[in-house]
């Protein structure tokens, strides 16, 4: 009997989450921290997928919102007194969203390559503000002095900056964001965004004011990136301007394309693939002396992936089936 697709997907999602939840049982501290880092990046990648994959707006400045979330967290934790986890989380998301609103309103007047460049320009702006001025210790970066206090109705179950608690907080956050985005994608709002991606003229003709929809998508994406930035800062205890640099915007764009655009799971898969590939090529047990040259292999792998997997990793099964079909 063939199980219908949505049910199969739900089962797959539950299995993946269960496996991730069980991972700390077998993984050491290093592996747990590594996966936790990926979980945070997966949230970041998902937020960009909302823009690029769902709405068709290629932003090359998404790191700005990631970095703004992280810097908000760092600047709010400059004295040793504990501050509420939830308060800082809300502040990080709000700051990212507040900057995204004017950026979206202005940059959405352009399109195509120009939009890519304007978003980059607004991200560089934030980069230079934190890099050149003394707001947050300039290019040296800034340490978090305090710790966000994770409290549920007055009860503080754990110190969220420790490896294991952080791992589960990040996993929980990823599940929530994923569920939120899936729901969003199925809502009227999500359908409108998909319509804008496919044919904006027709959407406008159908009576949709597309401009506010795109602004809303941009702001939501930025707030989720701010959430990822908050988690990243909480985990590392340190923030520097490189988090805002265009390399970071490029890397996250790379993740979602590597994973496959148009599907939420592509973004998560891409974050895992990108970081694990990096770790694999850096592994000197496998590559010996050559591990220092990991960028070379990563570069070739990226090119090969685009050449042979134009639809990303999520397109891989379909491609294999196609090939079997041809040979079989």
């Amino acid at each position, binding site marked *: 009997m063939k199980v219908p697709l949505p049910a199969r997907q739900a089962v797959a999602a539950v299995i993946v989450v269960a496996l991730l939840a069980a991972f700390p049982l077998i993984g050491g501290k290093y592996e747990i921290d590594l996966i936790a880092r990926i979980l945070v990046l997966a949230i970041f990648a998902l937020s960009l997928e909302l823009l690029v994959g769902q709405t068709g707006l290629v932003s090359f400045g998404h790191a700005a919102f990631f970095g703004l979330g992280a810097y908000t967290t760092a600047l709010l934790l400059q004295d040793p007194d504990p501050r509420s986890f939830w308060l800082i989380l809300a502040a990080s998301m709000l700051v990212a969203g507040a900057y995204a609103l004017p950026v979206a309103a202005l940059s959405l007047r352009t399109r195509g*390559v120009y939009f890519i460049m304007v978003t980059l*320009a*607004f991200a560089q702006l934030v980069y*230079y503000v934190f890099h*050149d*001025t003394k707001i947050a210790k300039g290019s040296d970066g800034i340490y978090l002095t305090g710790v966000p206090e994770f409290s549920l109705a007055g009860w503080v179950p754990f110190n969220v900056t420790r490896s294991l608690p952080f791992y589960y907080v990040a996993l929980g956050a990823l599940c929530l964001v994923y569920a939120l985005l899936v729901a969003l994608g199925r809502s009227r709002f999500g359908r409108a965004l998909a319509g804008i991606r496919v044919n904006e003229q027709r959407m406008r003709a159908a009576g949709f004011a597309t401009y506010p929809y795109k602004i809303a998508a941009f702001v939501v994406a930025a707030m989720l990136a701010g959430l990822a930035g908050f988690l990243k800062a909480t985990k590392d205890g340190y923030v520097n301007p490189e988090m805002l640099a265009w390399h970071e915007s490029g890397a996250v764009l790379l993740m979602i394309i590597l994973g496959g655009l148009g599907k939420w799971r592509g973004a998560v898969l891409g974050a895992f693939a990108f970081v694990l590939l990096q770790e694999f090529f850096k592994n000197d047990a496998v590559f010996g002396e050559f591990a220092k040259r990991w*960028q070379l292999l990563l570069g070739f792998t990226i090119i090969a992936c685009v050449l042979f997997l134009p639809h990303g990793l999520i397109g891989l099964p379909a491609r294999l089936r196609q090939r079997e079909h041809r040979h079989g």
Partner: protein
Amino acid sequence: MNATTFLVQCLNAVQYGLLLFLVASGLTLIFGAMNIINLAHGSFYMVGAYMAYALAPFVGDYLGGGFFTTLLVGLLLSIALGYVLEWGFFSFLYEREHLQQVLMTYGLILIFEELRSIIVGDDVHGVAAPAWLAGTIPLGSLMTYPVYRLFISAVCLLVALGMYLVLSRTRLGMAIRAGSVNREMAQSLGVNIDFLYRLVFAAGVALAVLAGMIAAPISSVYPGMGGQVLIICFVVVVIGGIGSVRGAFIAALLVGFVDTFGKVFFQEAAGVLVYLMMAAILLWKPEGLFRQG
């Protein structure tokens, strides 16, 4: 700020702007003619700077040395590099979406950086300007200005003039312009478009390499110099209007002036100014100053 300081800053701004133009013109030419977003263009600039450093000893040993001989060898190598890269890599990108081009050329950046690290290492190097260009000329009673910077401006101006003449006055330039407007139509009228693309690409690489080579004595040679110049060149290309060489020229000078005087008047906010200007210009003209048809 007195008149002499002002003059010095103006000369600096013009020199920086013209150098940017040299890199950005290749980028905009490749974009205009072949519709390719090439993130690896900054790497060509980096390759040029490292060539200026690494080729000098070889040229000294086998060809009798000399700044211009090194420049010439570098240019020939870069044309070969561009030709081979177009044939072996970029010609596969024409049919792809912009996003995929971004990805693949990003991969290329990583490869170039790592090859550079393997071949010449990660150290910062200085490159000496040739002796007869190393002096300074007096400006007013107190200030002097290095001759080499004037030399850079002169070279860039000559190249700009040459490009203008080739693009607007020759048959080759006509073919390039025709190919960028409509590829199939140009092809059916007898233009060998594959060869043309290869040529344009090689020229673009050579321009970036030339910029890197002549900039090496004033900027020194360091890892990551490609990434820095890449972003600012994209800004120039976008402000000028993608595909427009004339636009890139104006935009490069604008960026040169805003950046140089920004650093004089507001040290801390200097980095921001160029991007603010770009945002403002694009809001006024969403397709840049001189969008090609």
